[in-house]
């Protein structure tokens, strides 16, 4: 082995690249960037500005934060509904003015002032909502118009009444308390903001109207098709935003006891920046109140911090603009490319040097040499079937197979022309086995281990095992249960091929070649599932030995067959009985002559074997080429191989033309015939085995003659 190759093997087998992809599959990574920004902002301003975290300084900041975060909450809801509200600043200002006008000039009670505030906000919100929701005008332009209109109105009113407000004698304890008081150490505005945030959060995540908002934001058309009243939902989001802004306006009126030309100035930009920086998507449907709050804290810390560092309004605006631009770019790019990044990063190949193998080329003289015998097989269900991964026959000679539509199809003996859907399970039924009482046990890809009773009752036996300590994605879940077999005591031994890929992506696992396959056992007596062996490269077929004391299981990508001992001195251990085959083994089943049939799902190719020694090349390949172009093992040619109790190869047959049985994933001997299935095939083959016992059946071999 060259130095380069040795370094490659260390680099790719010891560094856990696959964890990056696994972390990216977690939804919380969406929050990671805003959270990081929050921590960085707080930490940097906290360390630059002395006394930044002092209580007195915080008290003033948090009051501001309370008002501001309410506005942001409103903005967040509008954005979740797929809109944008630029008028929050002017609504905020007008609400503030309304309260001031009622309280100081009309000298009415503070509660009436609150009502006036709310009314101003709700009216403006309703106008926005009507125009955007019902008349379906563009949210951006509409709210821009209401923003300009509201701001102009506010400017006129403020200049007209400023002097009157100054001269007013009105006072109120309630107003002072709201403006300056604290309750359990926190100001009223913070309390209100917290309550509003909690209520909104619960409404969005756990109530029908909240879900409607998210659905409308996620996809307007789908929401409409699902029967959601889209227009009304949009309308309500703007009303809610107006409501939030008006409470904010009322609070600032109480705090400042007046309204000035600067009230609510640039608030819309700050609120928008806060929402986007927090990670609320501009496209709608993605985000949360918490994200909005994180953004609010970031933006406010930033602007206040900059002011205290002595930077003017210009700098502040500039920083806000830059933050908005960066956040929008990240948001759009991340949203658009997340799955691409995940696709690119997820496949993390490892190094493997496959052992030299004997040739399977026809006429090569090895026991593996394939011939063309299987092309002579009759076909069953041609064109009706899609994806019979495994096939099995019952005591009455009926034929069963799974399909990629999640069904178990039964073909009736003796001619296997007529068929019916025996049961619908879902997922992708793969390995099949009959237990002693005639229940059909199936490993269902992407779902788990299932049992179908003779009267078609589907029951889940197992969908999880215990989780390993170091896993990032939940490896307790059975991801790709592949084949099963049943011991004489009724325990079901089955394989879960990979922890890394879902059942339909099984072939991708060969590119990565990481050893994550497991052998598990389900005990029907207590319903428990235990992991027996872990760390094989795609565990596949399972077959009880004829004496029931051990079982064979296939390790596909390593081209090996192992024997796992159930009893005797080696109980609980596995040993390799066939290694370095020229094909990738799939299901294994008993043969009538005391040997075993093994399906080959594909053949090793020199170019692919070589690529296993170049994990860096495979990694770049997965990143730079679309999946259709990736180099795969040759799974267009398979075969059926017979081996004996000690792992010696007896014979091999195939369909070299590839017309009828390109890939073989299972075969079952029954009364002198071999029934052949393939996960990517559209038929079951029936091949007459010369010299086979014409009475031998698998149910009898497992459970004795018919009772």
């Amino acid at each position, binding site marked *: 082995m060259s130095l*380069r190759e040795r370094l490659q093997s260390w680099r790719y087998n010891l560094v856990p690249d696959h964890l990056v992809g696994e972390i990216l599959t977690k939804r919380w990574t969406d929050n990671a960037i805003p959270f990081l920004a929050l921590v960085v902002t707080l930490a940097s301003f906290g360390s630059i500005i002395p006394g930044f975290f002092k209580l007195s300084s915080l008290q003033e900041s948090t009051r501001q934060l309370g008002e501001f975060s309410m506005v942001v909450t409103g903005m967040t809801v509008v954005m979740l509904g797929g809109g944008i509200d630029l008028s929050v600043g002017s609504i905020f200002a007008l609400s503030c003015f309304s309260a001031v006008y009622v309280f100081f000039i009309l000298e009415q009670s503070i509660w009436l002032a609150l009502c006036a505030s709310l009314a101003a906000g709700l009216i403006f919100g309703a106008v926005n909502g009507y125009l955007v929701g019902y008349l379906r005008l563009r949210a951006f332009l509409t709210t821009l118009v209401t923003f300009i209109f509201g701001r102009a109105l506010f400017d006129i009113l403020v200049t007209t009444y400023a002097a009157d407000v100054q001269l007013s004698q009105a006072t109120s304890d309630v107003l002072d308390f709201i403006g300056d008081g604290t309750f359990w150490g926190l100001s009223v505005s913070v309390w209100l903001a917290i309550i509003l945030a909690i209520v909104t959060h619960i409404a969005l995540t756990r109530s029908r109207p909240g879900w409607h908002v998210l659905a409308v934001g996620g996809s307007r058309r789908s929401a409409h098709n699902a029967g959601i009243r889209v227009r009304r939902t949009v309308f309500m989001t703007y009303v809610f935003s107006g409501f939030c802004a008006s409470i904010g306006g009322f609070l600032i009126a109480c705090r400042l006891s007046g309204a000035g030309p600067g009230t609510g100035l640039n608030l819309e930009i700050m609120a928008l920046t806060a929402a986007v920086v927090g990670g609320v998507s501009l496209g709608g449907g993605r985000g949360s109140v918490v994200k909005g709050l994180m953004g609010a804290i970031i933006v406010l810390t930033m602007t206040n911090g900059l002011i205290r560092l002595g930077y003017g309004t210009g700098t502040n605006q500039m920083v806000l603009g830059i933050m908005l631009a960066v956040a929008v*770019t990240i948001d759009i*790019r991340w949203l658009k*490319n997340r799955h691409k990044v995940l696709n*690119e990063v997820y496949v993390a190949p490892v190094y493997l040097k496959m052992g030299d193998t004997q040739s*399977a*080329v026809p006429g090569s003289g090895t026991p593996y040499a*394939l011939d063309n015998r299987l092309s002579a097989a009759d076909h069953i269900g041609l064109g009706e079937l*899609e*994806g019979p991964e495994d096939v099995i026959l019952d005591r009455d000679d009926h034929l069963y197979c799974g399909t990629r539509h999640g069904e178990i199809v039964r073909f009736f003996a003796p001619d296997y022309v007529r068929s019916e859907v025996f049961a619908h399970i879902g997922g992708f039924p793969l390995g099949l086995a009959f237990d002693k009482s005639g229940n059909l046990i199936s490993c269902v890809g992407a779902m788990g281990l299932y049992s179908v009773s003779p009267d078609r009752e589907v029951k889940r036996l197992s969908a999880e095992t215990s989780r390993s300590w170091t896993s990032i994605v939940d490896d307790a879940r059975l991801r790709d249960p592949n084949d099963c077999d049943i011991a004489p005591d009724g325990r079901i031994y089955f394989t879960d091929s990979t922890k890394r890929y879902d059942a339909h992506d099984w*072939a991708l696992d060969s590119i990565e070649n990481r050893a994550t396959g497991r052998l598990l056992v389900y005990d029907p007596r207590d319903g428990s599932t235990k992991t027996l062996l872990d760390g094989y490269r795609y565990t596949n077929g399972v077959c009880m030995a004829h004496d029931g004391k051990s079982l064979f299981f296939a390790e596909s990508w390593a081209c090996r067959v192992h024997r796992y001992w159930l009893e005797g001195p080696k109980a609980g251990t596995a040993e390799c009985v066939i290694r370095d085959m020229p094909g990738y083994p799939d299901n294994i089943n008993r043969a009538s002559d005391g040997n075993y049939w093994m399906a080959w799902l594909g*053949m090793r*190719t*020199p*170019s*692919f074997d*070589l*690529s296993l*020694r*170049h994990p860096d*090349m495979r990694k*770049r*390949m997965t*990143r*730079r*080429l*679309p*999946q*259709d*172009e*990736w*180099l*795969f*093992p*040759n*799974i*267009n*040619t398979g075969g059926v191989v017979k081996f004996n109790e000690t792992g010696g190869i007896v014979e091999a047959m195939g369909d*070299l033309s*590839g017309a009828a049985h*390109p*890939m073989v994933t299972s075969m079952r001997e029954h009364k002198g015939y071999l029934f052949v299935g393939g996960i*990517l*095939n*559209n*038929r079951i083959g029936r091949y007459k085995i010369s010299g086979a016992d014409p009475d031998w059946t698998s149910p009898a071999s497992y459970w004795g003659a018919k009772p």
Partner: protein
Amino acid sequence: MILDPILDVFRGKAVTIPPLDGAFRPNTRLDDAPVFAELTEPDNLLSSGDRLLASSGNAIHALAAGSEPVVVDTFQSPVTALALSPSGELTVGLESGTLLIAGREVSLPAAIRCITALAYADDGTLWLANGSDRHAPSEWAADLMKKGASGSLWARMQGGDFRKVAGDIAFPYGLHPVGGDVLVSESWRHQLVRFNTAGHRTTVLAHLPGYPARLSPAGDGGAWLTLFAPRNRLIEFVLQETHYRQDMIEQVPPAFWIAPALSSSRSFLEPLQCGGIRTMGIHKPWSPSRSYGLVVKLDQAMQPQFSLHSRANGTRHGICSVRENDGQLFIASKGGDCVLAVDLASGGF
């Protein structure tokens, strides 16, 4: 994406190839075409008088409708190029690097060892394409996978000696004299280049979707271009992968390389790409493939007009030579072991 140029430094650029579109829009005309003659690996086609000659292995066969190919001549090593001089002398290039004109061996400069194409201009000038200075014509795949660009173009004026017109051509594989100039198909760079007698080069047609092979004149003053194999993104990717490629060249038998091929899916030891997996009995015609059948008609300005295809699921792959004769187009499918005849008059192209 704006960050792509930055990210490309770390992850490399996506590998892309020109799409089969416009004049290259796929069809199944080659697979629909009737077989004119069955012949093992027919390479060059030539019309000599009323006969159609085809080279196959060491022999030249005469083909006629409704009869078996007749061997006209055999040679010491495989025939790699054929041409007919204006005076009717059969000119044959061999794998061994020998050039025979009317049966007599012509002495060649030592640099010529890989005769891939021969063509006579109207004034009697003989153009010769030397594919590579280190590989024989049959080792073309090695030349490609080693990124060879050592081909050269030679000319022999009437009565003179061979003179090197241009070098550093990445496998010149086809010749088409146009006036005093010659059009050369530069295979590994997927382009057609025009050379004048002084060796000045101008690119006529670039970004071809396959590896161009031989050119032959069309009745309307245009030309027929054959592309012997398709471009494939995995192959182009492997060409960028130095270590893997070197190991592959050293350790894997050439037939099973990740490299273009004249035919594919004949052995289970050949590489397979994800898209080429047979699913539900179907081999997708648009799947990536190492071999393909493609003949392109070029107009008088040498721009593509239309094309004939045998797609990934077809069998008439590896077309290296065509010949237009009396309103019929004869197509030699080296990967499909047959010569096809397409009626141009009724073509409906």
